[in-house]
């Protein structure tokens, strides 16, 4: 049975004005497969929509082509019109004769428009329906980590009614962030109490992830705690494993009493029994890692604090001070007004130990001269690194990390708190260099996404939009290895043959598998080879 295509033209209220619509309609009406052609000025408005609906029903159309604006603009809308006419939304193709036709060229473009429509018609004739279905999902969430971001995430997830497991490797929650409490102005102790008192949150300390399997809505995680291993099922996983810092020092130098980390300086500032106040303090940052907001904030905060509390002479060595975090610019001005001296250096200063003091040699860009500073205390540059176990965990979950080893946060086209694998999210320092304000905005982002996915207990998704034909699949494993979203695994068919099975929930319909399959076994509705070739072969037919 040949398919019957209805073509609907729209001149977008006159916005398309260099096409001879009458001539175009006549030509299109003669295309094989086209049963009816309609012209409208406002297809996406109520009047146009009604005309479309009645035309579909009357002419028994089962494939629709709209020749008008860009599908990026109106494809979703027209798919719904089809659905309300009783047709599957996928039996639809759009010819972009506006943005990519009329508006892109001078003069009459009727010939091109007609060809674009023919491409769409020839594709539409081959389109197959794709159904949607509600897939039941597990509503529980696993949060891996036990620091500020993890605890925040667990609390917020609980508040929206999702049961959460907080999985921490250390014996105590918040142990790693406790030291930063003073700097960042939050009370980790009270947060931990709140989590402990929350019925919706299960806390597993001294525990680790040993294995994972499954896809979004149905992750099976094997957890090891106290020598025992248990499997739990979760709908989503949130990674909040944080970061660690390491002093960036030349190998000859050792961190000792007068070369310290920011954290150590914080403790010194809070120590009422501190014997000797350092009179001259040098800070270093921004040489090894030029993107560290945390280092910038910590330096500004601590430089100011040391100046105010100890009245020390403070010298900050850096390449530049990047003030894109909230409060940073204000802190910088305050620090300078207070008398903190900033030295802009192009190259990393040379540090040497010198008679119980620390000698810093640097060339300031503005002075143009070599400066030598002998100070009592050097707050050394710190590198921000992913926490231990980040690499192992990313292997277990089969997700990528960026060039610095943090969970992928460099690909800005991806929703920043989501991984390429659906159902796995990141929040906090494990994403890389984040100041607190970003963590505070990331957590509700993740919670909103997870809530949207899991709260109703099912996810509406397309069924077999991309499928490996079990007759043709030879289980060569290429698609499984190549899928960027880890959505494919080996499954057994009814007659026990092992073939590639694509998860409807985890698939992101990119077509990378369809292109690479050596047996051409993968059927990607809407972008099958025949559907793409139909468009290619139409070009230049006339």
């Amino acid at each position, binding site marked *: 049975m040949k398919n019957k295509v209805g073509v609907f033209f729209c001149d977008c209220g006159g916005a398309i004005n260099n096409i001879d619509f009458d001539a175009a309609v006549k030509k299109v009406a003669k295309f094989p497969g086209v049963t009816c052609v309609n012209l409208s000025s406002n297809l996406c408005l109520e009047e146009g929509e009604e005309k479309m609906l009645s035309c579909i029903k009357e002419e028994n159309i089962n494939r629709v082509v709209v020749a008008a604006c860009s599908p990026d603009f109106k494809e979703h809308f027209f798919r719904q019109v089809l659905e309300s006419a009783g047709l599957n939304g996928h039996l639809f193709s759009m010819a972009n004769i506006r943005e990519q036709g009329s508006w892109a060229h001078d003069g009459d473009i009727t010939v091109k428009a007609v060809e674009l429509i023919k491409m769409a018609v020839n594709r539409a004739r081959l389109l197959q329906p794709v159904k949607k279905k509600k897939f039941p999902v597990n509503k529980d969430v696993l949060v891996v980590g036990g620091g500020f971001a993890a605890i925040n995430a667990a609390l917020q997830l609980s508040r929206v009614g999702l049961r959460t497991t907080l999985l921490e490797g250390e014996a105590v929650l918040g142990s790693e962030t406790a030291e930063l409490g003073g700097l960042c102005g939050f009370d980790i102790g009270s947060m931990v109490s709140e989590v402990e008192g929350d019925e919706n949150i299960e806390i597993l300390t001294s525990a680790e992830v040993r294995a994972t399997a499954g896809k979004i809505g149905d992750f099976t995680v094997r957890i090891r705690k106290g020598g025992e291993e248990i499997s739990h099922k979760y709908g989503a996983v949130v990674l909040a494993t944080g970061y660690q810092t390491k002093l960036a020092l030349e190998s000859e130098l050792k961190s000792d009493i007068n070369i310290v980390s920011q954290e150590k300086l914080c403790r010194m500032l809070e120590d009422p029994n501190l014997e000797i106040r350092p009179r001259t303090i040098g800070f270093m940052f921004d040489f090894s890692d030029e993107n560290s907001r945390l280092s910038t904030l910590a330096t500004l905060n601590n430089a100011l604090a040391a100046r105010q509390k100890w009245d020390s002479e403070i010298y900050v060595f850096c390449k530049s001070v990047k003030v894109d975090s909230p409060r940073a610019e204000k802190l910088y001005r305050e620090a300078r007004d207070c008398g903190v001296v900033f030295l802009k250096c192009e190259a990393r200063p040379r540090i040497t130990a010198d008679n119980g003091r620390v000698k810093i040699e640097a060339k300031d860009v503005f002075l143009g001269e070599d400066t030598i500073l002998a100070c009592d205390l050097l707050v050394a540059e710190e590198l921000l690194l992913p926490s231990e176990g980040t690499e192992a965990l990313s292997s277990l979950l089969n997700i990528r990390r960026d060039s610095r080893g943090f969970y992928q946060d460099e690909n800005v086209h991806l929703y920043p708190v989501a991984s390429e694998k659906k159902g796995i999210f990141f929040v906090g320092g494990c994403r890389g260099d984040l100041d607190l304000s970003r963590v505070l905005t990331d957590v509700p982002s993740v919670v909103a996404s997870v809530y949207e996915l899991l709260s109703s207990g099912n996810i509406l998704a397309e069924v077999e939009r991309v499928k490996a034909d079990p007759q*043709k699949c*030879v289980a*060569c494993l*290429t698609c499984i*290895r190549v899928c960027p979203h880890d959505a494919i695994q080996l499954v057994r068919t009814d007659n026990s043959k092992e073939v590639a099975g694509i998860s409807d929930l985890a698939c992101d319909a990119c077509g990378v598998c369809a292109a690479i399959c*050596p*047996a*051409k076994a993968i059927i990607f509705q809407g972008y099958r080879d025949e559907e793409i070739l139909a468009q290619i072969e139409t070009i230049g037919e006339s």
Partner: protein
Amino acid sequence: MIIAERKPMAEIRQMIAPYKKLLLAGCATCVAVCWAGGEKEVGILASQLRLAQSKGRKKISVLEATVERQCEKEMVEELRDKVQEADAVLSLACGSGIQTMAEMFEDKPVFPAVNTTFIGMPEREGLWVEMCGACGDCFLDRTGGICPVVRCAKGLLNGPCGGTRKGGKCEIDPEKDCAWVLIYRRLEKQDRLDLMRQYYTPKNFRAVKRPGRIQSVKA
């Protein structure tokens, strides 16, 4: 599986030069998996040949067909009609498949579009490495599952040769790992290093008569 590689285009064109109608025959098993001769590769080669002829060369017509396994007579039989239509057949299957085609259709020239190279596996996506030389006298039990016949450049049975380079690399091909270093390490993991001290007599290459013939017990 069997790994093959498409022949250089110049060689292919020389083979098919005298013919006007060609059937390109692919195989959906080993050569498809190693991206050398499956339906996709048939399509690509056919497209190339058609594009080549449009540049003012002699007009040829190109037919395409792929069978599940080109070394099975019943499956190759399916191609009979298409083969009749053509003047010559260009097969992208392994040597076994090509010869089956040639035998089934004796009156048609059947040409190899690929070189059948070795028995191997994918080390990673798109990288096929040789594992087995089909010597017919497997002794992987003694070498921790690593074959020195194929993976040692000198095919030594009692290696290493003493020329192993730094980092455990082969004297002859510094890009390769010395197979005997690999064997040693594997046996060490299994606590079977005593095997390294056993001496093995030269291989009996006559164990496999060429061409091989094996009669399985009828089920």
